[in-house]
C-alpha cells in the first residue's frame, strides 16, 4: 500500500521537450515510473527517449495512452493553461513542479478545481515518491527506502535532509509528498495527513512545515480530532524576520500571523512531537516509534 501513486500509475510529462522536463523524465524512467506520453504544443507526432510519443494536447495524450496522471514542467508564463488543460482532461493526479506562478493565476486554477476529479499537487513542489514503485517529481531517488513512514513537507531540500536522516536510521518511507512552497497550492497538509491516516501501510508521519499561511494550524486541529498515528514535526523559520519573504512565496510572516512559535504550539497541543532543530528529526521519529512499540515493524529488513 501507499498513497496516490504506485506501479500502475501512468504518467504524462507536460513540457517533456524542455531542458528540465527532459532531464527529469529520464530520471523518472530510470526509477521505473511508467511515463507513457509527453505533451509539448507543436511537437506532436515526435518520439522522445526512443519510445515515448509526444502530443500537442493532454486530451490526445490521454486518449492514446490511458494516462491517469501528469507532471508539469512548463515555465510560469504558460503554467496556468497547462494546469487547466490537465484538469479538463480529468486526470486523477496533476503534479506541478513550476516555481513562480502568479498568485492570481493560481487563484483561478484553485477555483476551477472545485468539483473536479483531479488531485492537484504543488505548484513549486518537488513532487512525490512511493519508494520502490513510482516517482513523479524531482526528488533524489537514492535517499529513499521502502518502508512505513509518511513524509509531507512544504519544502524540497529540507525533506531530503529529513528523509536521509530516517534512511540512515534504517526507517523506510511509505510515500513522501512535497506540497509546495506557495500559499495557493492544490493539496494541503490536511489532505495528505488524511491519506496517510487511512493508509494501512503508514505507521508514523513526519510533517515539515514553515512560517507563513495557516496550513500547519489547520493540520493541528485536524490531527487533534482524527489522527492517532505518531507524528513528528519541524517548523522552519523560527529566526525569520517579519515581513520578509523567505524564498518561498508562502513563507512570510505578515500581519503578525504565521509565526513558527504559533505553529509549534498548535501542533504540540495536538499531541505532535516537535523538533526544535532540523538535525534531530530522524532520531525523534526513532524514539517515538520505540515508545509506541512500532520500531521493529518500521525498520527496513
Amino acid at each position, binding site marked *: 500500500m501507499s498513497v496516490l501513486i504506485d506501479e500502475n500509475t501512468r504518467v504524462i510529462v507536460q513540457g517533456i521537450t524542455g531542458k528540465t522536463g527532459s532531464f527529469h523524465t529520464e530520471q523518472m524512467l530510470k526509477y521505473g515510473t511508467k511515463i507513457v506520453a509527453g505533451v509539448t504544443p507543436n511537437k506532436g507526432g515526435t518520439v522522445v527517449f526512443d519510445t515515448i510519443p509526444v502530443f500537442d494536447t493532454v486530451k490526445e495524450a490521454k486518449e492514446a495512452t490511458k494516462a491517469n496522471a501528469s507532471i508539469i514542467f512548463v515555465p510560469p508564463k504558460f503554467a496556468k493553461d497547462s494546469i487547466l488543460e490537465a484538469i479538463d482532461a480529468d486526470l486523477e493526479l496533476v503534479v506541478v513542479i513550476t516555481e513562480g506562478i502568479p498568485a492570481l493565476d493560481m487563484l483561478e486554477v484553485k477555483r476551477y478545481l472545485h468539483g473536479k476529479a483531479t488531485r492537484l499537487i504543488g505548484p513549486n513542489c518537488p513532487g512525490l515518491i512511493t519508494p520502490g514503485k513510482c516517482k513523479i517529481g524531482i526528488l533524489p531517488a537514492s535517499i529513499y527506502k521502502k518502508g512505513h513512514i509518511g513524509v509531507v513537507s512544504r519544502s524540497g531540500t529540507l525533506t531530503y*535532509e529529513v528523509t536521509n536522516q530516517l534512511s540512515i536510521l534504517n526507517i523506510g518511507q511509505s510515500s513522501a509528498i512535497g506540497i509546495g*512552497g506557495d500559499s495557493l497550492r492544490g493539496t494541503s497538509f490536511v489532505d495528505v495527513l488524511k491519506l496517510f491516516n487511512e493508509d494501512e501501510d503508514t505507521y508514523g508521519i513526519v510533517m515539515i512545515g514553515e512560517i507563513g499561511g495557516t496550513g500547519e494550524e489547520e493540520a493541528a486541529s485536524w490531527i487533534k480530532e482524527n489522527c492517532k498515528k505518531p507524528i513528528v514535526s*519541524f517548523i522552519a523559520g523560527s529566526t*525569520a524576520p517579519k515581513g*520578509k519573504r523567505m524564498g*518561498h512565496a508562502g513563507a512570510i510572516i505578515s500581519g503578525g500571523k504565521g509565526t513558527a512559535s504559533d505553529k509549534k504550539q498548535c501542533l504540540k497541543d495536538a499531541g505532535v512531537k516537535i523538533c526544535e532543530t532540523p538535525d534531530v528529526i530522524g532520531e525523534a521519529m526513532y524514539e517515538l516509534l520505540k515508545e509506541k512499540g512500532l520500531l521493529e515493524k518500521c525498520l527496513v529488513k
Partner: protein
Amino acid sequence: MKIHEYQAKELFRKYGIPTDNGILVSEKGGDLEIPFDPPYVIKAQVHSGGRGKAGGVKLAKSINEAKEIVNNMIGSTLYTKQVPDGKKVNQVLITDASALTKQMYLALTVDAAREGIAVIASLEGGTEIEEVASSNPEKIYTEVIPYEIGLKTYHATYIAKKLEIKKENINTFVTMLKNMYKMFFELDCSLIEINPLVENDNGLIAIDAKVNFDDNALYRHPELLELRDTKEEDPKELLAMEHDLNFVTLNGNIGCLVNGAGLAMATMDIIKSYGGSPANFLDIGGSATVERVTAAFKILLMDENVEAIMVNIFGGIIKCDVVAEGIVEAAKAVELNVPLVVRLNGTNYELGKEIISKSGLNIIYASDMHDAVIKTVKASRGEL
C-alpha cells in the same frame, strides 16, 4: 515589489480612486512652492509602514515650518517598527492637511485560505491595523470576494454600511472600491491599502496609499518596473536578484549558502539555536553553477559583519561535485578571508568531498548539518 506612497497615489488617480494632491520634494534647501494653503502634512517616502510613530509624518502650520521640516527630514534616517535598522529618506511628499475627522482603514489582499480577494475594512483607521487586529478583532470587517463573480455593488455597499459611510457618499465609495478591485487584477497587486481613508465635507479621500505587486507577475507589467526605487532596497539583495538568488539580509555574523528555501530557513534556525547568529538567508536555487556560487560568495562577503561562512548543500538534482567545483573556484576568485565550513550531502557527495580536500584551500569539511553548525559557530568566534 513595493512602491512609494506618491507613486501609489499616481496609480490611484489613474484608476479613479479619490486621493489628495501633493508635491514631491527630493532636494533640501530649495525654494518651496506649494500650490495650496497650509496646514500641510510632510511625509517621508520610504518603503515602510509605521512612519508616523517614527517621526516620518509631520504637520506644518506654515510654509516656513514646512521648509524647516523638509530640510530636516531629507537625508535623515527613519527607524520604524517594521524596519528597525532604518531607512534613509531621499524624498518627501507634501500634502494638504485635510480635516482628519473620520479615519478608516480599507485594503485588498489575496486570501489564499479562502481562495479569493479579501476586502478588509475598519473604522479604526489611522493606526497600525495589526494592533487593532490583536486588541479589537471585532472592529475589523473582512469580505472575501469570489474570484468567479468579482466585486459586485452589493459587496461594496455592505462594506460602506460597516464603515458608516454617509448616504451621499455611498455611490462614490462603491465606485472607488470597484476601481480598487479592478486595479488589483489589472496590475497583479498583492496589496492595496488605504490607511487612513478619510470622509469629510469634501467626500472621500485616500490620505495614504500603499501598493505592493506580486513579484511572480512582474513579467506581465514591464511598465511597473520603472517604479522600482533601487535606493530603497538592500544592495546585497539587489545584486542577488540580478543573479536569480533568493537573498535576505539579517544582522548576524555567519553567512549562509544553502540550496532550497526550506533548508535555508532551517539552517538559519539551527545556527541560532547553537548560539550563533545568521547574517542572511540565501537560497541558491536549483542550479549551482560556478557563476552563481561565485556571485553568492561575493554577496556574502560584501557584509563586513560576516566572520564565518556555512555552506549547507543537500544535492538532489544538484550534484555535489559540481557544487564543490563551484565553491573552490569561487573561493579562489573572491580571496576568501573568513573561515569556510562546507557540508555536502546527497548525490555525489564523496566526489565533492574529494574536490574540496584536494583543492589545498583552507576549507573546513563537515560530515552532516549538526557537525557543520557546531564547527561554523566555533569558527565565527575564532575558536576553530
